[in-house]
């Protein structure tokens, strides 16, 4: 395959950055998208140019590091997939592919296609956890959990924190991410104890970090590589209302 790549290049967080256009020949449809970028980088290095910086880690769709905005969609044209699980067979010979970093005030660009997603970690630090003594895993059946709640919690917990929801949302809102974390824990008995404190703290932090406000467009759900449902956002709203009306502090 022969491709035209239009890639955002930015030296560092302070630099202005611009699009560079590259011609890339010899791409195999069997390559993953990241392998195609590796292949392109090898060529750039041989030519003596700086390779394109992009984030990745597991390359098997579970770490959420590899988010790229490809042809106007987070993680590219495939449904329910991360960028590392996208393959070049989804493109045609002669295609032009536009590759941009996530765009959000809360995710500043560090270099080229890499953005700083520390904001998502700060959200977790604000309350996306349970306080429990660590140690060996407790006996699984000692706390009964209804199957449907476990399933809902599992769906929310599938979130890999890639930030595609923020990237695609026209308001750069992190509501789906926060909703996934709040739902995952609020649905389980272990997480219920701190549920109201958690939701208030996480919403406060979300606002502080400069994410936008949810306007229920549903773009996040449509583009989430793990199909996390926006019914989690409704649950987040419910949790917020109940916590706000009943929390003692």
């Amino acid at each position: 395959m022969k491709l035209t790549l239009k890639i955002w290049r930015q030296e560092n967080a302070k630099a202005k950055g611009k699009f560079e256009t590259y011609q890339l020949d010899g791409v195999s449809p069997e390559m993953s998208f990241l392998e195609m970028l590796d292949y392109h980088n090898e060529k750039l290095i041989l030519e003596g140019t700086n390779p394109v910086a992009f984030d990745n880690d597991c390359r098997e769709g579970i770490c959420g590091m590899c988010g790229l905005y490809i042809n106007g969609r987070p993680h590219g044209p495939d449904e329910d997939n991360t960028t590392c699980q996208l393959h070049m067979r989804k493109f045609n010979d002669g295609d032009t592919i536009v590759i941009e970093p996530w765009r959000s005030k809360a995710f500043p660009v560090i270099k080229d296609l890499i953005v700083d997603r520390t904001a998502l970690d700060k959200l977790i630090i604000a309350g996306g956890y349970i306080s429990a003594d660590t140690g060996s895993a407790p006996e699984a059946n000692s706390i009964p959990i209804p199957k449907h709640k476990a399933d809902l919690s599992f769906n929310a917990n599938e979130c890999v924190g890639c930030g595609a929801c923020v990237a695609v949302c026209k308001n750069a809102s992190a509501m789906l991410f926060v909703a996934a974390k709040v739902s995952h824990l609020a649905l389980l008995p272990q997480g219920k104890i701190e549920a109201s404190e958690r939701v208030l703290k996480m919403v406060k932090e979300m606002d502080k970090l400069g994410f936008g406000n949810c306007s229920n467009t549903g773009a996040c759900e449509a583009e989430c590589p793990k199909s996390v449902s926006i019914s989690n956002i409704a649950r987040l709203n419910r949790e917020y209302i109940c916590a706000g009306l009943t929390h003692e502090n």
Partner: protein
Amino acid sequence: MSNFFTTSIGKKLVMSLCGLFLAVFLLVHLSINSLLIICDNHTFNVAANFMAKNKLIKVVEIVLFLGLFLHIIYGIWLQIQNWMSRPVGYVKTNHSQTSFFSKYMIHTAIVIFIFLVLHFMDFFLKAKFFKDQMPPEIGGLEDMATAVILKFKMLPYVIIYIVCIFILGFHLFHSFQSAFQTLGLDHKIYTPIIKTAGVIYALIIIIGYSLIPLVVYFTFPNPA
């Protein structure tokens, strides 16, 4: 609790509660307007005068203006934050499979606001403060019917009115179900019903409000 209504979700709660209240008002307003074409001028005048003079309605009117005010202020507040949350935009954007109307809420809102101001000056203010610009009273009743018919006999007015009603309808297509989502009301069975109800509601508003000027324009005699 002190900042319950000022967080992102809190602001949206205000938006949704005010919005739902305004949605009820639109239906009440429509039902009174439709008396003009379903019944006659007199019935419409009786209803319009009742709405203008009843003490209880006057209290509701204050709540209505407050609701509208909050809906606008909070809407602008949220929108400005949303614009600021992405200082550098994308070069290439692809419309994902999301609700179409949800992307244009602020744009439709601006048109609705301008329309409301004009509408307000045309009827509400004139009837309240500039009685000399109103048709003469009939039997102690403000002749709102003639005031409306005079307006709806002007083709440009009818066209602008209907275009604005369609834009209002677009606003409602998204906002009805969105308000329920914001209030946290999400359910496997009820959410699809709410979504359908939202579409039916928006259609009722569009068709109902558009039909009145059309019927008046095409079938009513010119007022003497």
